[in-house]
């Protein structure tokens, strides 16, 4: 069976990279009630999750 962790991991790595970049380029672009750089924090979380999925897929293969 095709390993779903590959496409899922890839999507989250791309999203994570995009969000982190947005967070780094526009650190002051904040929504009204946000007190942190939401894009950067979420971007790093997405990157880590995506990398974990890719690593698991690679280990399994």
């Amino acid at each position, binding site marked *: 069976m095709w390993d779903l962790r590959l*496409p899922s991991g890839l999507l989250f790595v791309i999203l994570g990279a*995009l969000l982190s970049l*947005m967070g780094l380029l526009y650190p002051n*672009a904040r929504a*009204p*009630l*946000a*007190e942190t750089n*939401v894009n950067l924090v979420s971007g790093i979380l*997405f990157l880590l999750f995506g990398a974990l999925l890719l690593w698991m897929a690679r280990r399994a293969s």
Partner: protein
Amino acid sequence: MRLHLVDYLILALYFAFVVGIGWVLKKRISTSADFLTSSRSVPLWITSLAFVATNLGAQELVGMCASGAKYGIMTAHFYWVGAIPAMLFVGIFMMPFYYGSKARSVPEYLKLRFDEKTRAFNAVSFAAMTIFSSGISMYALGLLFQLVLGWSFTASIALAAAIVLAYTFLGGLTSAIYNEVLQFFLIVLGFAPLAWFAVARAGGWEGMAAQLPEAWSHTWKYASSPAQNPMGVEVFGIVAGLGFVLSFGYWCTNYLVVQRAMAADSMAAARLTPIVGAFPKMLLPFVVIMPGIAAMALTKMDLGYALPTKGASYDYDQAILTLMAQFYPQGMLGVGLTALMASFMSGMAGNVTAFNTVWTYDIYQSYIRRGAPDSHYLMMGRVATVGGTLLSIGAAYLATLYNNLMDLLQLVFGFVNAPLFATFLLGMFWKRATANGAFTGLVTGTLAAAATHGLTLAEGKGGWLGVLHEFPSVMAQNFWIAIFAWTACFLVTIAVSLAGRPRPESELEGLVYGVTPIPRQTDVVWYMRPGWLAAVAGALCLVLNLMFW
């Protein structure tokens, strides 16, 4: 709320991935079983997340957040009393019969265990229910996007439906299930930061509790009397109505979710699907209910955010999107909307893939055209996928025309669903239950549900036969309708079965407890055995109940 280019880019990227997954899986389809039931080939971790995700539609997501704002943490009863015990029960006790009987669907199990008329009753009502629930969910999504984003109603639902159709048409059930897992990840990771930041801004759990009436931060403390809690329900109604009848009825007999477990690649995996799924499921309230509670607390804090109002009260359904606008900048806002779209799609694909199987195997192959070559049923499965999608869109438009009709339909679904669990319970665990008993019980249970609604009143609803009793809330009324319907079905099935002639035991092997060997699952390591894992899940669920007592 305004979206930027990057937000649209994220949405487009997600669309490309889900359709791409359908495209890759397309080459695996060569028979109707591949398309409609995945030919029992999907690994456990995927089926268990899909089991949870298919129920996590947009209505569930928006609705749970809204209920969080309206009722507080008591909303978690839908998970910690409702879903979890039922999921553990179906895995341990019922899956051996669903999977072991080789039935391709839940209605087909009813045919094997009872007879054609019971199967037909279930297949037709289930097929109609999937179309209407997918339509109602589509309507809710289109309305929300129109209201908050200013998108056209038609364009939003057409786009979402077209994407779902594309990947389910290409890769069938496997594609729907694979995408449900991707969608589950997106929903959790897309909303978890919102829950985190919103709760933190509202002062954490303690801060929120201080802002809101005390009943908002307790699940059980104020449940002894309906007057004490915002839901207007009491312990017996919660435990028997929601926890037992409604939740067991949904998680144990609804083909929409059971289909995911039946696609698993072994008996052990099928049994473990709902049990493993119970672990993420019990944590979902932190992602879907907490933001709602935070929205209410933030409204009281006077920070510049307030829940939008509708008439004299709050428009709770807008909680999730308005909160997103307060915390997510462009970029993450696109992810949040994509997550909402993903939740809608996982719910809709679940309905469409359950509909096409029941239509093809339980209605078309059984009553319209028997004995055709398999390629014909594969073609019919694909036609039913397109037909189901179009009918859902039709149902969504019907909802725009007749709002009250949708209320009525949802009520009728409640009538049909509530007694079903009694039929399955007796069918699987009492070999004396007969086909006539099951059918008469189902019909009586449905009528008992209607009669309870007709004779009681709650918030102006019901009472069309006269008012014998008034409930403090519609939720309490629903719980009690379920209790009466279940009891009527249970008693009548027993009475009629005892009056009739039982089926010989040899015909019931594989279908009923007591004449079927239950697999001990010694083929998996000890910590992955269903009984042990269910005990751990049950204990954790108990801890959550106590933590938020």
